[in-house]
C-alpha cells in the first residue's frame, strides 16, 4: 500500500510533461496541387520549413479559393501558410494584437481598423518591394488607403464595387424604359414608374442585425461623391469638413427624394419605414417578380439572387452603375477592398506580402471566380462573370474616379456605429439636419 502513494505524483508529472510538449496544435496548409510553374515564384526566394499565419474575415468558399490560390506559392517557396478566417475578426484582431498573439499577416476589410493597428505600433511598415509593386499595379488612390501618417503599411488585395443599380432587363424592355445615363434621367424614370402605379420604382432593405443601416450609408456615400465631387468626399471622410456640413445634409436630402418617399419605395414590402425591417439580402427579390423596378446594391448582390438567376445584359437581372449627377465630369464610383498588413518583418512574411501585391495573385484568384481586384495587371478576361468583367473594366478605366467606402475610412465610433444608427433614425423619420448633427457630435475628439 505504501508504495502506491508515490504512483500518483509520478503519473501526474508524467502527464504534465506530456502536455507541455503536445499542446501545439498542428494544421497543414491548403491542398497542394500537383505541379506549378515555379519560375514565376523565384523572386520570392526559398523559405523551406517556415510558416506564415494569416488571419482575416474571409470564410467558407472564399477562404477555400484563397487557399487554392496560395498553393503554388507554398509549393514553390516551401513556406506553409496557416490560414484562419473568422467573422469576429474586427473585434478579435485588436484583442490578439494586445495579447501578443497577433498573426503574421492580417487581411483588413476596413482601412480605418488597419490605421488603428498601425497607429498603435502593431503593424510593420511594408518593405520596398511591396511599395514598388503597389506603385506599379494600383492607382495612387489605392496606395493612399494603405498609408497612415505618411508611412505605407498595407497593399490592397481584392476589391468590390458599390453603387450598382440592379434591374430586370425584361421589365425595362417590356415597358420601353431606357437605362438612365444621368441622375436626373434616373429620377425622371423613377417618377414615371411611380405615376404609372404598376410597381414601385425602388426596393430597399437596410436590416442587417446589429449592423442595420449599412446599405443606407452606401447610398449616401454614392450621392455625396456624385453630387459634391471627390474633393469634398475626401474632406468629409477625413473630417476636414464636419459631418453636418450643409453639402452633406443636401446629399442626404437628395437621397431622401428616393428613400423617404412612400411613392418611390418600398416595392413588395410596404412604406418607407419597412426599409428598416427588410433584410438587405431579401430586399432586391421583388425586382424579379416585377413589384419594383430598381435596387441599389454592390456587386456582391449577385450572390443574393436565387440560384439559377441569369445575371447578364439580356438575362433575368443586370445592373448599371448609379449614374453621375454631372455627366461631363465622368463616372465616379465607390467601393471597398481588403488590405494586407504584416505584424512581423521576417523574410518569408515579406515575400508573402510582395506576392499578395503582385498581378499573378490577382489573376490566379480572379480566375476562380466570385471576386475582382483593382490590380492594373489583372486581365479582365480572367473574370468569371459578365458583371465581374464590367466591374474590372470600371475599376481599370482611366475615366473612373474611385473612392473607398467612406464609412470604412471613418473612425469606428462613426463608420460602424453612429453613421449606421443615424441612417436608421433618418429612415424612421428624424430630419436630415438633426441626423447629421448627431453623427457629427459622435465624432471622436482626439
Amino acid at each position, binding site marked *: 500500500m505504501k508504495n502506491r*502513494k508515490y504512483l*500518483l*505524483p509520478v*503519473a*501526474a*508529472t508524467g*502527464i*504534465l510533461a*506530456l*502536455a507541455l510538449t*503536445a*499542446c501545439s*496544435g*498542428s*494544421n*497543414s496548409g491548403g491542398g497542394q496541387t500537383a505541379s506549378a510553374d515555379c519560375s514565376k515564384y523565384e523572386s520570392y526566394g526559398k523559405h523551406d520549413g517556415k510558416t506564415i499565419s494569416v488571419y482575416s474575415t474571409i470564410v467558407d468558399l472564399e477562404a477555400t479559393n484563397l487557399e487554392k490560390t496560395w498553393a503554388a506559392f507554398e509549393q514553390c517557396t516551401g513556406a506553409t501558410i496557416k490560414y484562419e478566417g473568422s467573422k469576429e475578426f474586427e*473585434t478579435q484582431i485588436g484583442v490578439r494584437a494586445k495579447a501578443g498573439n497577433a498573426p503574421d499577416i492580417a487581411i483588413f476589410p476596413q482601412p480605418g481598423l488597419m490605421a*488603428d493597428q498601425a497607429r498603435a505600433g502593431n503593424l510593420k511598415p511594408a518593405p520596398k518591394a511591396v511599395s514598388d509593386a503597389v506603385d506599379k499595379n494600383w492607382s495612387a488612390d489605392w496606395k493612399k488607403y494603405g498609408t497612415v501618417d505618411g508611412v505605407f503599411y498595407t497593399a490592397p488585395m481584392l476589391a468590390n464595387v458599390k453603387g450598382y443599380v440592379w434591374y430586370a432587363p425584361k421589365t425595362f424592355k417590356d415597358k420601353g424604359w431606357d437605362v438612365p445615363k444621368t441622375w436626373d434621367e434616373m429620377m425622371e424614370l423613377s417618377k414615371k414608374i411611380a405615376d404609372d402605379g404598376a410597381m414601385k420604382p425602388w426596393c430597399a432593405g437596410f436590416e442587417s*442585425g*446589429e*449592423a*442595420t*443601416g449599412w446599405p443606407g450609408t452606401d447610398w449616401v456615400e454614392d450621392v455625396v461623391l456624385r453630387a459634391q465631387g471627390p474633393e469634398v468626399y475626401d474632406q468629409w471622410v477625413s473630417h476636414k469638413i464636419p459631418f453636418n456640413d450643409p453639402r452633406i445634409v443636401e446629399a442626404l436630402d437628395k437621397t431622401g427624394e428616393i428613400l423617404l418617399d412612400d411613392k418611390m419605395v*418600398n416595392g*413588395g*414590402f*410596404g*412604406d418607407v*419605414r*419597412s426599409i*428598416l*425591417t427588410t433584410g438587405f439580402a431579401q430586399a432586391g427579390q421583388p425586382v424579379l417578380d416585377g413589384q419594383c423596378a430598381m435596387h441599389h446594391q454592390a456587386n456582391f448582390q449577385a450572390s443574393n439572387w436565387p440560384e439559377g438567376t441569369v445575371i447578364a445584359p439580356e438575362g433575368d437581372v443586370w445592373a448599371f452603375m448609379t449614374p453621375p449627377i454631372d455627366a461631363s465630369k465622368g463616372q465616379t464610383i465607390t467601393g471597398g477592398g481588403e488590405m494586407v498588413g504584416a505584424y512581423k518583418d521576417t523574410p518569408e512574411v515579406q515575400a508573402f506580402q510582395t506576392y499578395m501585391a503582385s498581378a499573378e495573385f490577382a489573376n490566379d484568384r480572379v480566375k476562380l471566380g466570385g471576386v475582382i481586384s483593382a490590380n492594373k495587371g489583372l486581365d479582365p478576361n480572367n473574370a468569371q462573370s459578365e458583371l465581374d468583367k464590367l466591374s474590372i473594366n470600371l475599376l481599370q478605366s482611366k475615366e473612373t474616379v474611385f473612392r473607398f467606402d467612406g464609412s470604412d475610412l471613418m*473612425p*469606428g*465610433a462613426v463608420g*460602424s*456605429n*453612429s453613421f449606421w*444608427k443615424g441612417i*436608421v*433614425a433618418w429612415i*424612421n423619420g428624424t430630419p436630415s439636419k438633426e441626423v447629421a448633427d*448627431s453623427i457629427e457630435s*459622435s465624432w*471622436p475628439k*482626439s
Partner: protein
Amino acid sequence: MDFIGGKLLQVVIALAVFAAIIGLLMLLVDRAPKSAKDKITVIGFLAPAAVLLLVGLVYPAVQTSFLAFTDSAGRLNGLDNFVWMFTQPEALATLRNTVIWTVLVPLLSTVFGLAYAVFIDKARGERILKALVFMPMAISFVGAGIIWKLVYDYRGPGIEQTGVLNALRVALGMEPKQFLLDAPENTVFLIIVMVWIQTGFAMVILSAAIKGVPMELVEAARLDGANPWQQFRNVTVPGIRGSLVVVLTTITIATLKVFDIVRTMTAGNYDTSVVANEMYTQAFRAGEPGRGAALALILFLMVLPIVVYNARVLRQQKEIR
C-alpha cells in the same frame, strides 16, 4: 479529421493535467504534518477556487473600474464617461429603458406566474398546464428574439402579412402596425418577450412554494370564514414570501443584464437600447472601451443592492428555521 483528432487529444490532455494537479494537491494536503493539518486542509481546498476568483473575477472587476475612467486611447479622463452617460440623450434613453425593463419584467412575470400557479393548483392535468407555460424557459433569449421578431413582422397594407400579429390586425380590419419602430411602446413589445420566458420560471418556483404551505393553516382560515381572496392574501402569500423574494430578485438581475433580446430584435435602434447592449456597442463597435466599462460599472452598482437584499432575506430565513 487530423485537426479534430488533435483538438480532442488536447482536451483529453488538459483534463488529465487538471486531474493530476488536483490529485497532487489532495495528496500533499493528506500528507501534511499533523499539527497544522486543519489549516493546511482548508487552505489546500480553498486555494484553487480563490486563485480562480482572483484571476477571473476580482482582477477583471478592478481593471474594468479603472477602464471606466479612461478615454478611447487609454488616457485618464476623469468623470467624462459618466458625464457622457448622464447628459447624452441617447445614453439617457438607455438608462431610462433599463429602469422600465427592471420594473416591468419582474413584476409582470411574477404576477402572471403566481396567478397561474394559484389557478392551476390541484387542477386536472396540472402537469401538462405547467409544462405549457414552462416551455419558453427552454428557449434561448436569442431564439426567443428571433421567434418574436417574426411574430411582429410587418408588410405594408395590401401586401400579404407574414407576421402573426399583423395578420390578425388585418383580419380584424385594422391597419398593419410597425411594432418595433415606435418609441417608447416598442420597449414594451420587447419586454413582452422576456415576460413570456420568465413567467414559466416564476410559476414553477411559486407553485412548489404554494404546495409547501401547511394544509392546516389553509383549512383553519377557511373554518374561520375567510373567502378565497382572504385565504390567498393572508395565508398563502406570507407562506411563500421567501420564494417570492427569490423569484423577484432572480428575475430582476436577469432583466438588468438583458442583452440578447434587444440585440437580436432591434440592435438597440429606435430608442430601445439597454445598458448591457450599449456596453457592448460602445466597447466593441464604437471603440470606446472606457464608456463600455463605465456602463458596466453602473450595471454592477444596480445589481449590487438586489444581491445584498437577497442574501439578507435568505439568511433571515435560515435563522428562523
